[in-house]
């Protein structure tokens, strides 16, 4: 389940957000603190998560302390779904 979420997210980020479809994003790679995703794209990612998984990520959670890797984001999503 978690793998499914991270690969969906990785694909979305590579294709739609950073627009480098060939870029591989590993589940444990830091995506916020590394600067891969800037604050604007982070909101796009949150909107995508809300549309795709039906889970709300609050404005105050969009930072590297709440989640910094796809793994962490996936577990946040799962905990909300449960």
């Amino acid at each position, binding site marked *: 389940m978690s793998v499914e979420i991270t690969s969906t997210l990785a694909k979305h980020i590579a294709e739609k957000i*950073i*627009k*480098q479809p*060939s870029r591989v994003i590993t589940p444990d790679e830091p995506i916020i*603190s590394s*600067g891969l995703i*800037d*604050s*604007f794209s*982070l*909101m*796009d990612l*949150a*909107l995508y998560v809300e549309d795709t998984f039906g889970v709300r990520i*609050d*404005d*105050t959670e*969009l*930072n*590297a*302390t709440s989640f910094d890797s796809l793994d962490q984001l996936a577990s946040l999503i799962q905990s909300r779904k449960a």
Partner: protein
Amino acid sequence: MTIVQLGIFALVAILIGQLKKSRELAILAASVFVLFWLQPSQQFVSLVFWIPAATIGLTIFTWLLVSTPESRVWEVNWPSILVIAVVVLLIDLNQFFGLETIYMTTTPRLWMIGTGFIVYISFLMAATRLADKLKFLLTAVFIGIIFLLVYLKTPFLISKSFELIYALRGQESPAEAHYIFSWLGFSYITFRLMHTVRDFQTGRLPALNLGEYVNYVIFFPSFTAGPIDRAERFVQELRTPIALADQDWLEAGKRFFLGMFKKFVIADSLALIAINEMLVNQVHSAAWMWFFLYMYSLRIYFDFSGYTDVAIGLARVMGVRLPENFASPYFKPNLTLFWNSWHMTLTQWFRAYLFNPMTRWMRTKNISIPLIIFATQICTMSLIGLWHGVSWNFLLWGIWHGVGLFIQNRWSEFVRVRTTSPLPPRRQLLLNAGGIFLTFNFVSLGWLFFTLPSPQIALLAMSKLFGIGL
């Protein structure tokens, strides 16, 4: 804050850290006292007492509005109320101990604080009765705090009100330069109050009792200059029983002494060779101008991050881990990463409560992406600028960074879609070094608006830096 004061803070913090019970109350007592102790002298002497009193009053009032009925019960809160009341009363009674000259100019007569207390309690009772019925009271408080902040940060409004007070008293008002009014810590307190109000409205604020809430807002290591913690994180630290290991002591000691060294040795020395109006007028060499500008960049970093280190160290020996505020900001290859590592708790706050909501709202409308990015960056950075003080200089500083972030964002986008494979490591390294150089210089030039007294001087400095008008 002086070295002696920080030394006293350290001793107090160490003692508090030794308490097995009542740590929360001891921190509360110390924080309330420090709030009064550090308040600088004022045009109207009585304000030295009444401003900190108002800070506490406002904090308790806000707590009443953002707490749950369960956390408002008397059984939980009476020790905190007692501690606050006793400390405030002792400070006032100080007039009888004759210690006023040591830490405060003067304190009001007993009947005055007695009356003040009764008025305040009646106000609280009325407000709590209304609070449940009138939801807009919370929004009103939120807006009220913003208005108060704007007022305090606008020199024009301050001097106008002084003139008004003197006129009402029928006195001649002194020259404008002599208006002394400052509300110690209000800039930072605002963020904490606003964050709890917003999170309460969205149902994300945990239930806090009075002691926890007041401690969060005026925690003495961080209330004057940050870091700006989040309430849920802070109380979690406070609720965890303290268990200091050797590692905590080493870390705390390292942060405290390193911070003191950064602030009082490095930053204070650099202050003598950091760019200022006089140097801008006297220096006639572009190279020297760059040198003094860089010295300012280093100075402000060492001063601010040094103080943050001290605060983190002090909190650590009391069992509280404060969030980091700086992460090598001058070694970041672009402006976005710079702002993710400079005064981080401030930028996180603005991201959570301004940038993200604004972006979210604009994304749902049919607005072009570059426009959204431009508008949100300019708004956020301008407000961060104006938070330092309502003046053209701070506004220009904010716009400088807003525009910089926008350009950098567009450039990254432009490069990214054209980059298919990762660069060879050597070129990547070179690119990073170039990015660090460019970012540091861009930030340094921005400081001209921040530190020089007027936009004209800042522009003169900028032209001299580039060899014009030497």
